[in-house]
């Protein structure tokens, strides 16, 4: 391999483990119990093929029977139970979820059919890609003894409402009728995938330990003959990636190409190796409010980041008041942000993408620049946008049970209960302790529900 090619293949692909023997297996938990992920997955695949064979044989008999039987006597075909047909691996990015699947497939001589967030996963496309391959064998399969297949649905939390419409039901259907084992990967818990989570076993995959990561990194450094990386550099990028091995390897590759000798410059470059993490957002927010001086700089800052602006502008909303303290500046900044929000809403509603440039400038530059004169240089904590305005219409568990108890006695809608009846109950209860007892006896409330009424 010549000098040029060395950088062409991403090291992440180059050093992707070919077999689980050469891989550092991340530890995993299922239902709170620690398990060996590789063994569990191999076990899962073996059991799957065992069971599916039995079921296929059984179904074949039924089909033969049904062909001759009367309509009334026909029997139903069996399906594999969902929890035996698919598993879900959950864990932060870059810890080896995809790698372990490929390594196992390689070891067991299987072919991996993958779909990930880069594909649009609407019902139609998913069906086209997976369903056929999951149900039947290809024509070639009859001619030659084919490889068994393994279906990998990667980045399943990247399935978004409107863009990937109908994907979740399709996947659930797929799980029911599949002829091949399915492994899904996800980074975070998402409520929209709840139905999926309920159906199948879920493995929480933990990041590798520091020493294991160091072993792998040192091996790569040795193989690639990198000399320019000092121990401090390594510490820096390791700290930055927090167990994200893929990110670490990517950084390492980028770093090995830097020839700048100046240590401060090097550090800057290392830290600028962006990755989509919360930390990056923290940096963007600080830069936006404390270092950006011109509209172009603000534009650059938001353009360069991989962070979804849908997400970023909520962060800006949350942190605006702590960074801008002058009232006039704050008002101007919020005015711009409010218009940006309105524009964003219109873009989403009417698909008026021509408005997008205004949104870009208003939510970043429009927010950062008003406060430029009275800027404070000190360190400010960046807070996470916990509050989401959509929560105002949803109820938590004790609220729900309170509502149900009231509805059993007094037929109102949920919203009416909350806006009309509960405020009255609160006042009624506040009058005397006796009233509290009367109400709680009447509705048979528990402690949590009583607390809601206080």
């Amino acid at each position, binding site marked *: 391999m010549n000098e040029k090619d060395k950088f062409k293949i991403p090291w992440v692909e180059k050093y992707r483990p070919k077999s689980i023997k050469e891989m550092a297996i991340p530890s995993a938990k299922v239902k709170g119990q620690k398990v060996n992920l590789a063994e569990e997955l191999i076990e899962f695949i073996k059991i799957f093929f065992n069971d599916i064979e039995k079921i296929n044989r059984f179904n074949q008999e039924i089909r033969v029977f049904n062909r001759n039987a009367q309509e009334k006597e026909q029997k139903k075909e069996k399906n594999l139970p969902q929890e035996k047909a698919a598993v879900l691996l959950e864990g932060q990015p870059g810890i080896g979820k995809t790698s372990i699947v490929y390594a196992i497939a390689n070891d067991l001589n299987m072919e991996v059919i993958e779909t990930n967030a880069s594909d649009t996963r609407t019902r139609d496309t998913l069906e086209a890609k997976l369903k056929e391959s999951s149900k039947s064998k290809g024509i070639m399969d009859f001619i030659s003894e084919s490889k068994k297949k393994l279906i990998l649905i990667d980045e399943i939390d990247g399935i978004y409402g409107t863009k990937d*419409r109908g994907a*979740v*039901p399709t996947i659930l259907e797929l799980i029911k009728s599949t002829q091949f084992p399915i492994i899904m990967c996800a980074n975070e818990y998402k*409520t*929209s995938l*709840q*139905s999926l989570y309920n159906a199948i076993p879920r493995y929480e995959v933990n990041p590798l330990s520091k020493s294991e990561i160091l072993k792998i990194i040192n091996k790569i450094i040795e193989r690639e003959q990198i000399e320019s990386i000092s121990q401090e550099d390594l510490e820096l990028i390791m700290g930055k990636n927090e167990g994200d091995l893929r990110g670490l390897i990517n950084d390492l590759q980028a770093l090995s190409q830097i020839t700048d000798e100046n240590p401060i410059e090097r550090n800057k470059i290392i830290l600028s190796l962006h990755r989509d993490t919360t930390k990056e957002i923290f940096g963007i927010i600080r830069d936006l409010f404390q270092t950006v001086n011109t509209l172009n700089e603000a534009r650059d800052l938001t353009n360069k980041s991989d962070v979804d602006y849908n997400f970023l*502008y*909520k962060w800006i*909303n949350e942190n*605006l*008041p*702590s960074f801008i303290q002058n*009232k*006039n500046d*704050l*008002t101007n900044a*919020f*005015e711009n*942000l*409010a*218009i940006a*929000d*309105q524009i*964003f*809403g*219109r873009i*989403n*509603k009417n698909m008026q993408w021509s408005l997008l440039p205004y949104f870009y400038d208003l939510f970043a530059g429009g927010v950062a620049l008003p406060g430029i004169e009275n800027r404070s240089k000190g360190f400010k904590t960046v807070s996470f946008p916990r*509050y*989401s*305005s959509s*929560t*105002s*219409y949803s*109820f938590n568990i004790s609220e729900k049970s309170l509502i149900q108890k009231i509805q059993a*006695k*007094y*037929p109102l*809608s*949920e*919203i009416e209960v*909350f*806006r*009309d009846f509960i*405020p*009255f109950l609160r*006042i*009624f209860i*506040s*009058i005397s302790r006796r*009233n509290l007892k*009367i*109400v709680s006896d*009447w509705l048979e409330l528990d402690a949590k529900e009583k607390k809601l009424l206080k």
Partner: protein
Amino acid sequence: MPIWRLKYLPKTLDEIWGRKSLISRLKDFIEKKNLPHLLFIGSEGIGKTTIAKLFAKEFLNSYFNANFKLIYADIPLTQEERSLAKSEAYISTSKIGSMAGRKITTPAFIQVKVKPFVQLKVIGDIPFKILVVKNFEALGSNQQGFRRLMEIYGSNCRMILITTKISGIIDPIVSRCQLFLIPQIDFNSFNKLFLKISSNENVEIEKDVIKTLYKITDGRISKAIDLVQICDKSDGIINLNTLFESLKKFKIEEIEKLILASFKGDFIKARNLFRNILSIYKYNINDFFQKILEVINKLPLSKYAKIKLINLIAEADFRALDGRDVDIQISSLISKISIFGENM
């Protein structure tokens, strides 16, 4: 039954206070065992739903449970219901014409909440089932889907649509219904009701109090009963003083605090306050702004100042209609009020 408003909730049509002519018209339908689609119009909290329900109960009699449904048009579908809705269907290609093979979409709301009920056959010995749709105007463009339903399934299911704003309902729907203006309870009946409560509960209610109650509640019975129930009854008598004391308790103090904090320019506090209010009372954004307006109207401010504030709120409300994040719009409003407060 510890809560009076439930205790004095009418259980039959005859028990409904006042509104005699309306009830006799409704009873006519019951006698003839026939009714058109109805549209109930009247202001909030006046008893439209109670009347509709009691009417349906007496009309359907013992088959009430299986043949009656009440749906709220203003409550959005839950995630589950949404996934239930098959949002795509195809027009058969065998039909000749430009629409053949095209996708058609039925609004999820109608598909999940309305259609299954209206399509199901009547159970029992009654002419048809009854569907009550509350806050019908909130259906918006989905009303278009409703008009066909009213025709196709009309023989199977009659509908009672309830609304506070007839202007929000499209003409084709209005023309398919018989209109019922639900009047306020008249003062005489209101008076009688409270005299009854007074004798049942062993408290004396002064005549002035009943008059004032009628005025401040706009004839909303449940609100008036609520007010009386939380009055201090230790003296065995409710006079205007005790009434005003209990009226004070109904104020949402948080909103006043919110406006005060905004005036003072304490942005962080104001922000926490409004987030709290939204999550406790589950207001939607429009209701929230209405509440603020109510409070501002009562504040001792100059005419100019009030108009300016209303201007600001209107602007925020208008933007929130388009915008994606309510939080931003309210935050912006608060920051503007703080500037305004500084200059005052």
